[in-house]
């Protein structure tokens, strides 16, 4: 079988210093997809839990909640149970649990990340854009207009993910992912808030407002009752200094959290996202024909849809296994394959084909082998950035490290949050990726868009 293998296989065999054949797959550890995920995310528990790489002030959020609640249960509850009712710590406990669970779910859930387009797909889209005749001398910002409920909506092309973004999808520059129904990137929970975790986020802020108000009220009651019994507020404070800490924390957070809850309740009721509200996408001042095409024109329906709608599973399949990249290709048109090929290129060109065959093979329990034959109908040109035929990329194309330059070429525009009357929320920046212009075609993006993992070495094309 080794004689049928191409030089690229030998190179990989040399580099990895293990001889692999299709029958010897067990020698290689099969990797999961999260290990090669291109976005800026962190994965724990073998892909079960994910976070943004910049987790922001999530530890601070957790610490504040735990400290405040801890002090409450330790110092205020005994007095209040004695004076009032035993239900106070019970209610506090339930609220506290609810807050912590929803916070963790908001932080650890996939917000609705769209996996990046595979090279074949990206090439197909590029071809369609080129053929449509809409591009003139300068490459325009690539947009596509569609009609949704008789409303014109512009779909923008994402040059990182190599696809036209679905409606309401936005690219988060902090996480470097396109997120469906993108709301905002929340530093307090350390994750984007999107379609899949918006309901957790809403439950979190609502329950947190209840918890904060509850603790605030209880602590004030505690201090009041105590000061009555010891004849003086100063004495009461001296006896229970922790309560002052709680009052301070709650007082400063209550404004912003209540404001945020109110704002998001408005958004839920009108089926808007923070992103759309800030950008004024559907504001009526643009003209009467502008209106939110996604609303059901009924507050109750909107609430039900946003909060209780069906829960789509994660599209990035982070615990799925990567197709093994060691199977030798069986190609007839081998003369077109170059001798040198980046390992990533091999992965890219074979991965998509193999995935198809694997998916069929798995169901029929056949061991599939890769057939990365040259797609003859796809035009291969040096201008075409993402030819599926990455295997026929000419040696003069740039090294895969320019794959990162695409990111630097973007200019993320930070949109400060316009939450009403909340100073804490002023820190709550909503980072959206507002694309100003797409990078020119001549930026020699290599097709290596999916592999950002450092362990994927490559041989530069020379």
């Amino acid at each position: 079988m080794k004689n049928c293998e191409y030089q690229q296989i030998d190179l990989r065999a040399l580099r990895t210093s293990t001889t692999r054949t299709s029958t010897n797959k067990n020698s290689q550890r099969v990797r999961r997809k999260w290990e090669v995920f291109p976005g800026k995310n962190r994965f724990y528990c073998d892909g079960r839990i994910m976070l943004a790489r910049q987790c922001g002030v999530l530890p601070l959020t957790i610490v504040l909640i735990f400290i405040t609640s801890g002090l409450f249960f330790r110092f205020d509850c005994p007095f209040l149970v004695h004076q009032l009712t035993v239900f106070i710590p019970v209610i506090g406990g339930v609220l506290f649990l609810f807050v912590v669970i929803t916070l963790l779910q908001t932080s650890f859930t996939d917000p609705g990340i769209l996996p990046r387009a595979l090279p074949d797909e990206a090439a197909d889209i590029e071809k369609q854009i080129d053929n449509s005749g809409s591009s003139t001398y300068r490459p325009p910002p690539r947009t596509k207009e569609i009609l949704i409920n008789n409303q014109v909506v512009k779909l923008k092309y994402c040059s990182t993910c190599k696809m036209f973004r679905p409606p309401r999808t936005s690219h988060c520059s902090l996480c470097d992912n396109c997120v469906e129904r993108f709301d905002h990137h929340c530093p307090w929970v350390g994750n984007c808030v999107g379609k899949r975790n918006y309901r957790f986020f809403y439950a979190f802020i609502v329950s947190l407002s209840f918890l904060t108000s509850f603790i605030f009220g209880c602590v004030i009651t505690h201090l009041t009752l105590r000061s009555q019994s010891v004849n003086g507020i100063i004495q009461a404070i001296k006896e229970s200094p922790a309560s002052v800490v709680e009052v301070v924390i709650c007082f400063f957070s209550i404004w912003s959290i209540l404001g945020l809850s109110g704002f998001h309740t408005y958004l839920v009721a009108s089926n808007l996202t923070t992103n759309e509200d800030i950008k004024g996408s559907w504001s009526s001042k643009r003209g009467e024909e502008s209106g939110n095409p996604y609303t059901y024109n009924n507050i109750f329906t909107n609430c039900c849809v946003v909060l209780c709608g069906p829960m789509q599973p994660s599209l990035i399949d982070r615990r799925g296994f990567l197709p093994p990249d060691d199977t030798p290709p069986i190609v007839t048109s081998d003369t077109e394959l170059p001798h040198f090929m980046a390992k990533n290129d091999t992965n890219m060109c074979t991965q998509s084909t193999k995935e198809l065959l694997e998916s069929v093979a798995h169901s029929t329990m056949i061991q599939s082998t890769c057939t990365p034959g040259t797609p003859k109908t796809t035009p291969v040109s040096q201008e075409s950035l993402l030819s599926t035929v990455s295997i026929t990329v000419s040696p003069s194309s740039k090294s895969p490290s320019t794959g990162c330059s695409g990111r630097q070429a973007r200019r993320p525009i930070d949109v400060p949050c316009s939450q009403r009357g909340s100073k804490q929320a002023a820190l709550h920046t909503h980072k959206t990726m507002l694309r100003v212009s797409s990078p020119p075609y001549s930026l020699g993006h290599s097709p290596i868009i999916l592999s950002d993992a450092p362990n994927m070495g490559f041989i530069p094309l020379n």
Partner: protein
Amino acid sequence: MALKILQDLRQAAVTSKVFVQRDYTSGTICKFQTKFPAELESRMDKQQFEETIQTLNNLYAEAEKLGGRSYLEGCLACLTAYTIFLCMETHYEKVLKKIAKYIQEQNEKIYAPLGLLLTDPIERGLRVVEITIFEDRSIGSR
């Protein structure tokens, strides 16, 4: 028989892929365009293709249907602080399994004999329905 055809497919060289894009005219629900791609004109029947895509669209609509059942699921989940998702399979996931089965069936019965292969859209992030066109070389009886 289907096994043999698929084995043959494996050894055929891939010629091209056709991507059926999403249709967003009804909003953000998952729906694919039923327009018959030009590359498949010589390969298969337009009616058959449209039927496949339409069935897929109907299945996705069923998954995303807003009704009593999904609201009940959502409310129950909210009351349990969403921990119920850890042990229960959602309605959406159940329908996705149905879809996977349907696609496999279609591949075995209709598309593989024509040298085509449908890829489940969930493997492409619900962006496209990918149809791989295989070179008609080794398909057939041996």
